[in-house]
């Protein structure tokens, strides 16, 4: 058991126990085995941490980070572990810092429309709490029932509502970050406007735990829209659906959600959940409009007209909350349905300019077909963010290799079309090899310089974002 992957030793583990208490330091093999993964399918590979710590306050985080820095021990912060690019996987061993115990909403300020939270607060819980006060925290990653604010900030996660409301980056006003040397950095503040020097806050949003550990965040809230309406519009071709998307946007309507699912996705959902999706259509648009009651009615009618104009075969509009839930259920069960097809499912994430969506979807299908892989394509069409969900069995070597090749081609295609590697999942360990495809040398050089400045010993989530 004293086989360590990093510079950690028994003496250091004892100091960790002194700082955090015995119950908050896990070193048994079986415990560490449960912290070697996140939601990324990586097959048989095993990256064991040497210790898992569960801090309960900032002071403990500070002391742990200091010890790690002094001894050159990697430290990987995580909470719900729902990352899809291996962001929480301790590639170089060391310490995994599980922030599940720092899950308090510290303050909700209704006058200033802000809230202050600990990193382990679950996004869905925060949304519920503020919603009870008539407020709204829009970012809605699919995992919101478990994923946390800390993780959302680290990955700058988005979700279906990103089209109208933006993503996590648009809601972070201020941060308290524990830096690699154990000093606390306070960025931003509590105001929406703030141009006092460099915008360090945004530097940390999406930094994937490589620059510092977010220990507290001040977030922007907005008033909750009065009403929502959900619609499904079915099309016989991807092109028609894409034209409808362009039509909606050029008519200056901004739906909260403008998602798309392809035929394969609909068929798969229908096979497992029987929600009444047609299996003979090529695409469905999932639309949600919100706002004041009157405005929702107007937007809904406009969208119906536009979809009809571009050849929608059928449009389902929710008449009440229950129907709205049913329509959303159809969309939300997509991942689960794909997960039931084969043992493993890999959710990819790429962005392209909005008008390139039909081309990108067609090419994606062509790529995965060529590699004999089952792919269900869905995504946030409004912001050009497409998620091909690939269903496979990673124990099958050929399939696993084919997936690698197909993924690379997928990113090449996205970049060719003027897009990029990730819309909302991040780079992590899975896409670090593709960074040079998407960014120029100078960008990478300055990013690496920034990393070196904040974390000269490379102890914070090493091996992520950049290939070493």
């Amino acid at each position, binding site marked *: 058991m004293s086989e360590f992957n990093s510079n950690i030793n028994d003496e250091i583990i004892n100091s960790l126990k002194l700082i955090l208490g015995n119950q908050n330091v896990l070193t048994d093999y*079986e415990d560490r*085995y449960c912290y070697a993964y996140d939601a990324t399918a990586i097959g048989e590979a095993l990256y064991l941490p040497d210790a898992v710590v569960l801090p309960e306050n900032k002071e403990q985080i500070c002391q742990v980070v200091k010890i790690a820095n002094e001894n050159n021990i990697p430290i990987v912060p995580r909470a719900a572990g729902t990352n899809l690019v291996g962001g929480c996987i301790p590639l170089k061993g060391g310490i995994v810092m599980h922030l599940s115990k720092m899950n308090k909403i510290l303050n909700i300020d209704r006058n200033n429309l802000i809230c202050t939270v600990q990193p382990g607060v679950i996004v869905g819980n925060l949304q519920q709490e503020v919603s009870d006060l008539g407020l709204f925290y829009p970012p809605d990653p699919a995992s919101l029932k478990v994923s946390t604010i800390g993780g959302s900030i680290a990955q700058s996660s988005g979700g279906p509502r990103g089209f109208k409301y933006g993503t996590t980056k648009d809601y972070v006003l201020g941060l308290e970050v524990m830096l690699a040397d154990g000093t606390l950095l306070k960025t931003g503040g509590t105001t929406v406007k703030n141009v006092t020097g460099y915008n360090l806050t945004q530097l940390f949003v999406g930094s994937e735990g490589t620059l510092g550990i977010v220990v507290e965040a001040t977030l922007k809230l907005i008033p909750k829209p009065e009403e929502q309406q959900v619609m499904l519009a079915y099309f016989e071709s991807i092109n028609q659906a894409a034209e409808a998307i362009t039509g909606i946007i050029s008519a200056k309507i901004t739906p909260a959600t403008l998602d798309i699912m392809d035929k394969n996705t609909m068929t798969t959902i229908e096979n497992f959940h029987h929600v009444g999706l047609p299996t003979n259509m090529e695409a469905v648009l999932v639309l949600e409009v919100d706002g004041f009651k009157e405005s929702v009615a107007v937007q809904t009618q406009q969208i119906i007209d536009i979809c009809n104009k571009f050849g929608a075969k059928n449009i389902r509009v929710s008449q009440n909350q229950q129907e709205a839930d049913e329509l959303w259920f159809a969309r939300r069960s997509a991942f689960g349905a794909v997960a039931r097809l084969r043992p493993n499912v890999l959710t990819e994430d790429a962005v392209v300019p909005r008008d390139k969506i039909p081309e990108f979807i067609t090419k994606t299908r062509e790529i995965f077909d060529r590699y004999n892989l089952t792919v269900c394509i869905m995504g946030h069409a409004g912001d050009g963010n497409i998620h091909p969900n690939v269903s496979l069995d990673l124990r099958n070597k050929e399939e696993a290799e084919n997936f690698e090749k197909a993924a690379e081609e997928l990113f090449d295609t996205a970049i060719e079309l003027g897009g990029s590697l990730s819309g909302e999942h991040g780079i992590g360990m899975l896409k670090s090899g593709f960074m040079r495809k998407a960014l120029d040398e100078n960008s990478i050089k300055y990013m690496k310089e920034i990393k070196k400045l904040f974390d000269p010993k490379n102890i914070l989530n090493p091996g992520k974002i950049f290939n070493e």
Partner: protein
Amino acid sequence: MNEEKTKFKNLKDYAEDVYKCTKCGLCQSVCPIYKSTGLETTVSRGKFTLLNGIINGKLKFNKKIAKNLELCLGCKACYDFCPSGISTEEIMAAARHESLKTNKMGFIKGFLLDNFRSNFRLGLLKIGLNIYKFFLFVTLNFIEGLSYFRLLLKSQDGKMLNQVQHDNSSNKFIKYLTLFNSQLRENIKYKKLKPVKPQSELNIVYFPGCINNYVNSSIKNSVLMVLEKNGFKVNIPKNFTCCGIAARSAGDFQSFSELAENNINQIPDNVDYIITDCASCGSVWKFYPDFVSQKLVNKAKLLAQKTINVNKFLAEREIYFPENIKISKKITYHDPCHLKRFQNVFEEPRKILNQIQGIYFKEMKDADVCCGAAGTFCVSQPQISKAISSEKAQNILDTGADIVCTSCAGCKIGLSQGLIEKNSTIPVYHPVELLAELYLKDEK
């Protein structure tokens, strides 16, 4: 005696299910244990990872993993939520079964389970409980007497006397004595009631379960009275043993199988219904077919279909509700995991409660989240169990209910345990107990 028995399913039989966990982690949102511990090792995703390690030969069963496997309530909440549809509860039982081969059960749990294996031991336990009850009665009355006395000294007009509640005492020990007392107190005594309906021809067997037989027969008395009042005659075979739920959950499949076969053999072939009042006892009949010898499999399957929870049985029929008797109380209902998720019965008890004159029904938050008792879990993991029960109790208190109803002997313990932690005296009833009270008042 179990020579030609069907082989029990073991972990290997679930290898594909365990492997297909996509590690999405959504189980964290519903796992009551994860909410209480915050540890990845305690949520289904973590357990599947360990089990997958065992199946692959990378890990071996040991004490640590055995302890880890204990940390599952078997509440099935994650199954409902799992995108891959993996049945954690079944897999945990199989894993514990396998784990038992290398790691013996804990002493207390083993002792508890042993008792359920024989009616003789349960009988002894009952005698013990009666002696204990007597002393408890004396002790509590003494304490109660003392607090009356103390209050009398404090309040001159004696008005405060009505407010004396022994569990307001700060002493945890006394609180728990009170808990046991409330569990043991027989609220409803059996009385022969005049049927209001003609005698039904249905051939009904009633499976009362251990709590009714050995601890407190209040619910049994109520079931009998309610059924008889509505014209249903029931038959209780003498040689029923424990349903075996605790043995199955603990992975002691051999004992479970023996109990299952005995219970199945007690039931005549021409039975129309097997009525259960306890959620757990009812759910177990559905497991029997997988655990009995070949010659009993068909009968077990048939009986599994004929097993019905008393709430469902009553809700499906036009039963008697006295028009002039009211219970003017606010009531909330806790869904036992074994009733809602294992038997899909959750509307029925609400339907019954809502039909009682005068009742104001108020739904609690998270009514179908586990109460924390989970069979022997409350004994083997008291801390986590209490934390979960406490949360449940808070949700009950938030409704402002006068009475909380549930349909499971185990949940009654979980709810009482939580309520005591919160210094509450809200009584816990089975819906049939309310009906029985109603009928008793009606005949007065």
